[in-house]
């Protein structure tokens, strides 16, 4: 018996034109992947040593907070609201493979693999003060690349006035997200000049090692002149937008957490004074400095602004 086959193709079998035309791109991407496979893999596990880290003059000259304290005293509500919860619960977070989606007003939007992002600039070590809105502080030797280097790669257009960031949303990996303590996913944002400022860092490590999960692995923001909650953790999305983006804490308690959230001893949090802070490891408090001691570098960004109003 002869089985006849229809000579016509079902429409579903036709390769869409757009996809067909992407063939070259696909081949290129394949070649790039093959090339990447030849390179030594970037370490992926917390505590792995990061190679080729460039030392920088960014150093407040104050003793860094011990690694044990930096990694067990965290505000990362995705893993619980207690300070020691993140260190206990962050083990379920898978930080590789990891990609960051870039959207909005830019020339090169897309979904970028973290390994690729890390090739856009050399990794630098920068020792920064970190001031939490809760009136405690640390000194942390971060490893990362300037956010400006990432922005230079994706090329924001003239319409892009702000950068909005988003943390991963996956209650399986982030058990704290099972309850709506915050309006998940966590969101933060910076004005474009703040985002492009040389102090603004995307960190992937601390103490020369891959970032532990509870510190925001694999990729987190560090904006040393702002309260810690601005430095969003485990970033999966960057959006280049024209208007002030909505941010998590600001939306939840606008009178307590402003969009700018610059460290400012002259503006109290409604529930506590911001004049002084307790450096982790110290018994007594010390004075809090305007812009967390980075006024010389960043105060000009806010020239003419009423910082009591734009807190």
């Amino acid at each position: 018996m002869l089985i006849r086959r229809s000579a016509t193709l079902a429409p579903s079998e036709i390769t869409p034109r757009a996809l067909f035309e992407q063939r070259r791109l696909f081949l290129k991407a394949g070649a790039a992947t093959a090339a990447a496979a030849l390179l030594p893999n970037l370490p992926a596990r917390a505590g792995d040593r990061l190679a080729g880290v460039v030392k920088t003059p960014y150093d407040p000259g104050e003793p860094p907070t011990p690694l044990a304290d930096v990694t067990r005293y965290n505000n990362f509500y995705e893993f619980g609201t207690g300070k020691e919860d993140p260190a206990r619960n962050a083990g379920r977070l898978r930080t590789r493979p990891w990609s960051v989606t870039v959207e909005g007003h830019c020339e090169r939007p897309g979904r970028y693999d973290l390994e690729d992002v890390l090739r856009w600039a050399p990794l630098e070590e920068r020792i920064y003060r970190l001031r939490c809105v809760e009136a405690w502080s640390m000194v942390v030797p971060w490893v990362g690349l300037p956010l400006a280097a990432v922005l230079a790669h994706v090329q924001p257009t003239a319409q892009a006035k702000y950068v909005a960031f988003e943390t991963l949303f996956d209650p399986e990996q982030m058990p704290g997200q099972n309850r709506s303590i915050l309006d998940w996913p966590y969101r933060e944002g910076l004005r474009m000049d703040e985002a492009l400022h040389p102090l603004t860092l995307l960190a992937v490590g601390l103490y020369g090692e891959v970032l532990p999960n509870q510190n925001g692995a694999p990729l987190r923001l560090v904006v040393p002149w702002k309260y810690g909650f601005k430095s969003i953790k485990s970033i999966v999305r960057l959006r280049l937008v024209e208007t002030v983006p909505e941010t998590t804490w600001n939306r939840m308690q606008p009178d307590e957490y402003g969009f700018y959230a610059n460290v400012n001893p002259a503006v109290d949090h409604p529930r506590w004074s911001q004049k002084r802070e307790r450096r982790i490891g110290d018994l007594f408090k010390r004075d809090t400095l305007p812009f967390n001691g980075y006024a010389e570098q960043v105060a000009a960004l806010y020239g003419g602004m009423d910082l009591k109003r734009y807190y």
Partner: protein
Amino acid sequence: MTPRERTRTTDLIKTTAFLAGLAPLAWLSARALGGGLGANPVETITHFTGDWTLRLLLLTLTASPLRGISGWQWPLQLRRMLGLYTFFYACLHATTYFVLDLELDLGGLAEDVAKRPYITVGFTAFVLLIPLAATSTRRMIKRLGRHWQRLHRAVYAIGVLGVLHYLWLVKADLREPLLYAAALLLLLGWRVYRRVLVPRLNAAARARAASA
């Protein structure tokens, strides 16, 4: 039980309760000596002593309902000790705050009390505890007579202020303070039920019986 045996049992219960009341402090001290107070020891001590003040306050308020429901006498015999332990942990809590947080700055204290509602209510609760602790002796009970009871009703206000203090200081996760609020509501609700509803129901029943 002979009266003598009863006294012995009471003594045993009181001694046990006295030692139990010291246990949280012993635990905290042991952790402090072992360097186990975490990255921010002052915060740990503040939270720990605050938690225990509230817990002991709620336990104090449990004595009378427990006696009412079970008929046991010993809860009432422990009530004063529980109340004094509440005051003891409140003192530790307030001292930690004033010495290690404010560094003895009276101006800072005034500013906190005036400007921050959770401190306003917490401070008020602490101040209200002082006359209660001061009038807890047998002599003062006798001397104040019926005024003593009226004065010590302030404990209900202290309970409400204490729970508010906790509720208003939390940033986002309200589960734990709400748990304390629920326990307080239950304990105060029981009193409202006993003192307001039961007499009314009884009166209504009597009225029905009289008219029948």
